[in-house]
């Protein structure tokens, strides 16, 4: 849930990158960190194992726009994708205003994608939320690799709510900005609608 700071005229939104292990969630944030103007983002915090697997979460604050007299700041988080860190995933997911589900396009990872998608639904349900009610987009990552599933099939498997699906190659900065931009639009629309931000 977005938090509004009337004193500093800021609105904070939490966006969470969710997906199976090694699908490219952290790469998304790293790409954003290196691509965005340094004045538009804060330091990226990453708690990872020596093998560069996300241990707790990655965090990247960015400033995107102003609405009315308020500056909208997005805090981007990733969850650890490994199965055993579900408690952490649930914790990071709490209060998310928007979700990017990052799917690995490789055929061999399709089951992991689906398990992670189901896990996302389950974890949201524990907060009495339905994924359908939370602004989210599907990012089909690693489209440059051989042996990948077609977009229509991944949509069938992982896009139960018929939300935008964006093809990406996170390591090459393809589709990363587009993903974030698409989600931000939906989050802001939802924010404006729910909180009547323009009248603040």
């Amino acid at each position: 849930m977005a938090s509004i700071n009337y004193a500093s005229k800021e609105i904070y939104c939490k966006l969470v990158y969710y997906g199976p292990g090694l699908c490219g969630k952290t790469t998304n944030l790293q790409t954003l960190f290196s691509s965005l103007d340094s004045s538009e983002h804060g330091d990226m915090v990453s708690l990872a194992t020596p093998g560069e697997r996300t241990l707790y979460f990655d965090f990247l604050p960015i400033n995107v726009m102003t609405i009315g007299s308020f500056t909208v700041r997005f805090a981007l988080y990733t969850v650890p994708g490994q199965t055993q860190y579900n408690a952490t995933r649930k914790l990071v997911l709490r209060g998310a205003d928007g979700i990017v589900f990052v799917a690995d396009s490789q055929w061999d990872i399709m089951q992991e994608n689906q398990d992670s998608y189901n896990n996302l639904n389950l974890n949201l349900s524990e907060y009495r939320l339905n994924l359908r009610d939370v602004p989210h987009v599907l990012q089909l990552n690693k489209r440059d690799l051989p042996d990948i599933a077609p977009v229509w099939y991944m949509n069938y498997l992982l896009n139960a709510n018929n939300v935008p699906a964006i093809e990406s190659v996170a390591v090459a900065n393809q589709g990363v900005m587009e993903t974030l931009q698409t989600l931000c639009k939906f989050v802001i629309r939802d924010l404006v609608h729910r909180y009547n931000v323009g009248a603040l």
Partner: protein
Amino acid sequence: MTVTDDSKTAKSSTTVAQGIILVILSLCAILLPVVIRKIFNLTDSTDGAEFSGSVSALLSMALYVIEAFLYLICGWSMSQGKFKIASIYVIYGMLSRIFLSIITALILNQTIIDSLTKSSSYYWLYRIIEISITVIILLLPVTAIVRIIYHTENVKDNKNKVEQQFSFATKKINTDANIRVFRPEEVSDTSTHLTPPEGFSQVMPAVGITGTISVPSTLILEAVPEAKDIIATDNDLPIELQYVIPQISNATLWFTWQQLFRSEVVAAKFQDRWVKIPAKYYVFQIPREYYVSSIESPVWMTREAVPQENDLNIRGVKKSEMIKPENEI
């Protein structure tokens, strides 16, 4: 873990030596309070009049129980090969005894030595607890030793390695020594990866669907390698669509052997074996109409666009280019 015959002697002598050390350490841990008691000329005499029904009696009983627990944890730690932790609990046990003596001395206005030589009216209960714990402490490492000597330790629980049992055991496999370590056999996919996910129930065939898809026979042989004499490895095998369609919303299809070969090859020992078919082997063979879903977009996607979102440019937006605060929605 098993050991070759020619190395049994060396292995046994090592484990017996380790066992003896373990027992000695256990006895030391158990006997420490006894030794202390002897140093202070403790007797087994009770003095019920002083303790009976008093707060000090309850306090001393509680502390005795705590001390007993500490020794119990000590024994357990020793059985796990955690000698440092065990020694810490011995010290805690001793400290609790001294603390008890000091408290008792203060309450009863005695010297600490006097206090140490007294025992509460609950002494018999403490004695029972102490004896029980002594037996348990002794039994725990003995059990471990017996398991090691008879080489059943790692067969029962592969996590309990010798290195974990004995901290002073070598952490590396000494390849020069006449000891060979046989690791457990690689677990085949059959038992680990080829079982349906939790909650999966065997699908019923869909009505009114005809046709088949074909999958490489190697996939089936991967799950049931014993069937290599029955199935030709160079041919694709047909699977009836009526069993496939009900499962296509999953990324993996699961079939029992019986479902795959209902009428032809039904070997009794294979009937309940599961066969996994990953999506890439069947997706393109199924008519696309089965993948069509007509779900409407969520409400938040239908919300009106916000004027400022046109200025939303995450590709390196500059603050100077952002919408001025005066421009309200």
